């Protein structure tokens, strides 16, 4: 009945737990050198990519120039050209912008859906929860990659938005599951019972009481998912079932390497894009892992 804390728990209890999880996470994260460096690098990349994309003429970049096919790096084309004589650097910048933006949009959309459904399933429980969980379990056992490819292949009027929708239709499930599990745990805590007895309506309890207590988990999850989504998008584009051809992606550049000659001898075509994907994903992941450690540590203390 009586929970006697042992001493180490007591110490933990005394360590101040600040209310603003965002602030705490931020403070803990910038203590982590690797994460801080990642943040700086990522900001630089994004600044350059989004900044210079403003001055680049996409039509000019995707225009075929037969006079300079597979040109190695030179003063004119810093990173050389591809089989159509198109500038790699330009494609790299546009591709990075597209990949990142689309990854972000997918993350936000799935985050929103997952949050709403997870909160509802976890908070109400019972039949609602049962039905939602059955659906989620079903979607999770589907061969995700295959189905996305099939959808991409058969959807009429395929464009960037349909791509985002198709991806989101599968990817919200993981988040919904996570949020549901956490909501289920929070729901059992007495502060939620207290709110109910005080006459607070359910939607307000979900949004004002429970949600703030999930914020750090959500932030960590969204960060790690952002990296994952960029990876999935570029992977699909690599296979040729990602962004439509009119929208260059980093994956498209890498896909030129399916030609063994390009892979072996024309490294400038595929290597920079591969490295850029790697660096972006590493940076986001290091930030995400640092956030996760900060959140875990806080959870242990709290």
């Amino acid at each position, binding site marked *: *009945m*009586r*929970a006697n804390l042992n001493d180490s728990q007591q110490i933990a209890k005394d360590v*101040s*737990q*600040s*209310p603003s*999880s965002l602030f705490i996470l931020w403070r803990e994260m910038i203590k982590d050198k690797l994460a801080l460096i990642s943040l700086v690098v990522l900001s630089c990349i994004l600044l350059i990519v989004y900044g210079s994309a403003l001055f680049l003429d996409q039509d000019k970049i995707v225009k075929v120039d037969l006079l300079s096919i597979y040109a190695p790096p030179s003063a004119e084309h810093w990173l050389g050209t591809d089989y159509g004589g198109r500038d790699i650097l330009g494609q790299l910048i546009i591709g990075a912008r597209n990949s990142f933006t689309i990854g972000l949009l997918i993350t936000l959309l799935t985050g929103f859906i997952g949050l709403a459904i997870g909160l509802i399933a976890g908070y109400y429980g019972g039949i609602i929860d049962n039905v939602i969980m059955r659906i989620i379990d079903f979607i999770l056992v589907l061969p995700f990659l295959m189905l996305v490819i099939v959808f991409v292949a058969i959807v009429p009027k395929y464009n960037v938005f349909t791509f985002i929708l198709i991806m989101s239709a599968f990817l919200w499930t993981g988040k919904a599951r996570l949020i549901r599990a956490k909501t289920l745990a929070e729901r059992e*805590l*007495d*502060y939620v*019972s*207290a*709110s*109910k*007895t*005080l*006459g*607070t*309506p359910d939607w307000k309890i979900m949004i004002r*009481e429970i949600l*703030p*207590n999930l914020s750090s988990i959500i932030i960590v999850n969204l960060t790690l998912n952002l990296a994952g989504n960029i990876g999935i998008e570029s992977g699909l584009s690599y296979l040729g079932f990602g962004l439509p051809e009119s929208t260059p992606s980093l994956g498209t550049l890498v896909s030129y390497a399916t030609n063994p000659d390009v892979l072996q001898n024309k490294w400038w075509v595929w290597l920079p894009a591969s490295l850029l994907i790697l660096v972006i994903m590493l940076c986001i992941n290091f930030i995400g892992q640092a956030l996760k450690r900060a959140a875990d540590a806080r959870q242990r203390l*709290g």
Partner: protein
Amino acid sequence: MEFLKVNHLKVYYPIRSGFFRRVVGHVKAVDDISFQLNRGETYGLVGESGCGKTTTGRTLIGLIKATAGEILLEGKDLAKLNRRERSYHRKDIQMIFQDPYSSLNPKKRVLDIIAEPIRNFEKLSPQEEKRKVQYLIERVGLHPDSIYKYPHEFSGGQRQRIGIARALTLHPKLIIADEPVSALDVSVQAQVLNFMKDIQTEFQLTYLFISHDLGIIRHMCDRIGIMYRGQFVEEGASQEIFNNPQHIYTKRLISAIPNVDPRKKQEQIKLRQHVEKEYKLSWQRYFNAEGKAYPLKRISDTHSVAIL
């Protein structure tokens, strides 16, 4: 008229089993209990874990749905009210929770925690609201400036008092206190118990005090109901229960409390052995074949026991 009357309250949970998860039976968390509270008294609900005392308290306040039975507050059946009426009557019953850590949202300031019910039921300007919260927080013995702090900045006893302040904001008539001190250290327990006694007279409160600790129940309560497996086995005034227990379960419970006087150690052990012998010998007098208690039988004006 009784202040609160509970008639044949039942809370059952289905047990599912077998291939198709059919309902094969019920866990009878609360199995047909009836009792009443008089205005201004402290009624103690005692029993061991799993006896249904917490479920009873949570059902009264509406956190758990009753399977059957009536809950009459000043003559009105709470279960039959529509949504709006129920939310209005909700103000009359409030709750103090067991765990001072989980019962306060760690992400909210004390001001927002205590003002939550005000925002639900009353439209006050921010100044009025703040004044009201400060009045309450001072009343529970905390500094008025502490309304801008977060729960983690307070000790267990202080948090429990913040919880009480929150329960008081709507001027309730009945407070259900579910193990309000069992998560606290002895010295802090005293603090909260004294305080609860003080505000009882000041705010004219009726308490339903739920606890497993008979020492605290004896200290706080005027009347006591003993619960065992979802049913009442004995009910009566505090002195009657402690000085003249009738049901074997009550006797076991009371004899099990360790005595704080080491010189009475042997006496206590003998008493316990004696009760245990009686329990084994006269089991059928107190429980039916399923191990359930019999219906309560009145043996004096205030004292009822569940015997044949």
